[in-house]
């Protein structure tokens, strides 16, 4: 069994140092194998973005102060790294693409300057040639002139491809994507995902793909972890989770996604809203909204591996197969 | 932590300033306008040679400095409030109109704002004072003539922001007229930022009034304004330091308090505006 590239163990992130402070992430554990694309899916407020940011310790000082648990990167705990060590793995070993392509690039610097800044750290000598090659690799037409252009002169899709080029400039082993396509049109998103899959294979790197869109997960991920209210409720291979979702939340979520292939009279619905960071219910956080909930669900659900690689935290794992829309 | 503490401290100081301005004059036993030449330039009680009779000492006409500071608080506050009323209303009206209507109206008005910002306020005050003679009204008009542009610039920017919100479009689809929209939706939503500008301007007005008094066109004697007292006492800074130092310290405290409160309000309302208020 090869060693996991990234292993997150009992990660808890509170808002501030105080042990009783409200928690955004609650004892989250997750492993990511080399070369694997792991999806992290959940609704807003589930803490998926904070998890992504925690890997490179990019959270705000207040959250950083309230972070406990381990984030092992190739065996070394990122939480305990010195500033210099952390700086060395940022970019070179782990890199990121963020959600808003418009804001990710410095508006007053040309594309070339920002790209070369990353390439320089990777020790490449002929920077301008390397920069042109990097842009070509992400399908940017006539890279030479584009290097002189400024971010506001480009479309959203093109900007996201440049951000990817910057992210890959130092050949990282892990690329974390925090909802990179949410701000893009569907046709542009489709092409970007294709490009990303190609780049992942070419660079043979692992990917942690954070999104709220199940279609994207199905398209690009090998495994997927479903998050709800700061916890991972179910993890497993994509085919397994989509075909036989065991956790009631995963099932309900999959069922309520409208599809172009058929139109039910009404969409199955989860009533109410996800609990705010402040008042999260005891035991299984989903029990107030869960149809299958019993009194047992008031206490913390056990973790069970109902099928190889398919793990969930639930007192009543659902066995009925799910007919995909 | 430090931020809340400084905010509470500043707010407390402002409340004291306003209370002193409103009720102080009634509690005084000395008449701020009358004094005896015998007791001229007596030092404050705690300094040697000072007497409890005049806690903060007397000025060059033997008038009680404490009484004049209290009376001065009222006048300085009055100058601030009137300026804010005049400059605020004119500036907001023009800024809102310009932001809402846009087009060439907006360009012309903003050019006017730039020109107003470039007006040498002190020279204008001097010219006005020469024409009309220094008076409370003259100062208020002159300072307002320049400071209205701060409100205009802020209310224009905010109106542009609000105008693009959906609830304004929704209001128009319900058939509301432009005037109704301005009063029901635009003004209530730009008010907080204008309050911040007003708070930050209290400091600017007090200091400006002091400079005008220095040039002899401030609030006319004998009624005291803080700026006037500092100006009057400057020629004997060494021998009778308290005459200008004490009102000077009062000005510094109030202006600092105003700025701390102003900044804190900005954070609560919309941090994006931070620093653009003054």
């Amino acid at each position, binding site marked *: 069994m090869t060693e996991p590239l990234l292993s997150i163990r009992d990660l808890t992130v509170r808002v501030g140092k105080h042990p009783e402070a409200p928690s955004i992430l609650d004892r989250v554990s997750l492993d990511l194998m080399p070369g694997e694309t792991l999806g992290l899916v959940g609704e807003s407020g589930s803490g998926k973005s904070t998890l992504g940011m925690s890997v490179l310790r990019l959270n705000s000082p207040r959250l950083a102060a309230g972070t406990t648990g381990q984030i092992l990167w190739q065996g070394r705990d990122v939480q305990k790294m010195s500033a210099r060590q952390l700086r060395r793995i940022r970019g070179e070993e782990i890199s990121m693409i963020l959600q808003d392509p418009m804001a990710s690039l410095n508006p007053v610097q040309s594309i070339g300057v920002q790209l070369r800044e990353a390439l320089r750290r990777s020790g490449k000598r002929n920077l301008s040639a390397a920069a042109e090659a990097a842009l070509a690799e992400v399908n940017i037409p006539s890279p030479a002139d584009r290097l002189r252009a400024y971010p506001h002169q480009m479309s959203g899709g093109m900007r996201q491809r440049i951000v990817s080029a910057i992210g890959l400039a130092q050949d990282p082993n892990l690329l974390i994507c925090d909802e990179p396509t949410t701000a893009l049109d569907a046709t542009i998103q489709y092409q970007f995902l294709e490009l990303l899959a190609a780049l992942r294979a070419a660079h043979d790197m692992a990917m942690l793909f954070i999104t709220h869109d199940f279609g994207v997960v199905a398209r690009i991920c090998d495994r997927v972890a479903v998050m709800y209210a700061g916890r991972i409720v179910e993890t497993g291979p994509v085919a397994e989770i989509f075909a036989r979702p065991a956790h*009631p939340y995963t099932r309900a979520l999959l069922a309520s996604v409208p599809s172009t292939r058929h139109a039910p009279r009404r969409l199955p619905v989860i009533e109410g809203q996800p609990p705010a960071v402040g008042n999260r219910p005891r035991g299984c956080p989903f029990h107030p909204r869960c149809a299958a909930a019993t009194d047992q669900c008031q206490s913390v659900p056990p973790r069970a591996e109902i099928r190889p690689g398919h793990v969930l935290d639930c007192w009543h794992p659902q066995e009925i197969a799910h007919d995909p829309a | 932590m430090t931020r809340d503490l400084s905010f509470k401290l500043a707010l407390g100081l402002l409340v004291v300033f306003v209370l002193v301005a409103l009720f102080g004059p009634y509690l005084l036993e000395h008449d701020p306008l009358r004094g005896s030449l015998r007791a001229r330039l007596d030092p404050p009680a705690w300094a040697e040679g000072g007497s409890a009779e005049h806690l903060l000492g007397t000025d060059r006409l033997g008038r009680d400095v404490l009484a004049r500071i209290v009376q001065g608080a009222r006048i300085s506050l009055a100058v601030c409030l009137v300026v804010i009323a005049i400059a605020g209303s004119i500036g907001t009206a023009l800024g809102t109109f310009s932001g809402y209507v846009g087009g060439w109206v907006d360009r012309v008005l903003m050019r006017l704002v730039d020109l107003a910002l470039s007006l040498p306020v002190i020279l204008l005050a001097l010219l006005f004072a020469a024409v009309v003679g220094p008076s409370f009204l003259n100062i208020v008009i002159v300072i307002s003539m320049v400071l209205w542009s701060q409100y205009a610039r802020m209310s224009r920017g905010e109106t542009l922001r609000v105008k693009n919100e959906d609830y304004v479009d929704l209001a128009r*689809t319900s058939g509301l007229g432009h005037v109704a929209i301005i009063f029901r939706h635009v003004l209530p939503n730009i008010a907080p930022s204008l309050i911040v500008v007003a708070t930050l301007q209290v400091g600017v007005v007090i200091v400006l009034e002091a400079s005008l008094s220095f040039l002899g066109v401030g609030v006319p004697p004998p009624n005291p304004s803080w700026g006037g007292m500092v100006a009057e006492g400057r020629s004997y800074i060494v021998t009778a330091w308290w005459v200008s130092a004490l009102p000077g310290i009062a000005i510094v405290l109030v202006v600092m308090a105003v700025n701390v409160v102003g900044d804190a309000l900005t954070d609560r309302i919309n941090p994006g505006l931070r620093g653009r208020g003054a």
Partner: protein
Amino acid sequence: MTPPDRALRVVPERAETPPRPAPSGPPILEARRLGRAFKVRGGLLHALSNVTLSCAPGTSLGIVGESGCGKTTLNRLLLALDRPTSGEVMFRGKPLSDMSRAEMRVYRRAVQPVFQNPYSSLSPRMKVRRIIAEPLSASREMSRAGVRDRVIEVLEQVGLSADVADRLPSEFSGGQRQRIAIARALASRPELLLLDEPVSSQDISIQAQILNILKDLQEDYGLATLFVSHDLATVRFMCDEVVVIYLGRVVERGPAARICTTPDHPYTAALLAAALPADPAAPATDTPPMGELPSPLSPPSGCAYHTRCPFAQEICKQERPVLKETPRGEVACHRVSAEGWS
């Protein structure tokens, strides 16, 4: 905060949509060859050109297109927030441009909008009661008590309790704010709802709740809807008929089911492929989307989509295809002759 209530229907219900009763009466709102061009530094920008569509009572029409296709401009024209540079917006057969103030007031009550961003739709300084009552203020027939009851009534219609009326918008989540916005639209008993991406900024579970409420309103009150979206799946669920727009022009129209299974226009096919289904086993598409969206300032010659179309031929570069009637609906593509694929 409204406590999360317990009802949950987990088991998926997948009945097909029953056939709709035939639409009755003349169309409420029509757009005839609608066009809007803006003067910009670089020249003339044609946001919308030659768009024709109509909403009959009780029907639901979907408008699908990506950013920059002109769907927001269309919405503003239909709401009389903006004037077209060509073509006409008709309400019950009468052009908006020559309607009297009284007629406009009737139009304003009959057609109500719901916008995308719930945080921008509600004025932060106003209580929910006054927000919802705003559309009624113009009509003035209702007494104060009448308005108060109507507010409670529409709040219940969107699943919110009466005490919501006296609170400020800042106390509600995105989903609840969107329900308030819908309640506002219902206040004046409209005949047509103009929905501009009402669920695009919501999470999946909230999206489903709001879509169901809108579907209830359509069926229980016979409300006509014009549903603008970039997401084909949502339009499939909500609408009977769909119009696909590209760079301000209609490229295809047809029943939702047909459009989502056998699209005629290559752009519609690309859109369908791009709407990734939540199913890893779904077959890969043979018409994957390609290329960048061209700048609306200088649209490509001939058929605007030819730069991204896998089937583009010479004719597509020179001549713009006309919107042709076909038994399956309408389509604007040289490859598709009147009878079908050539």
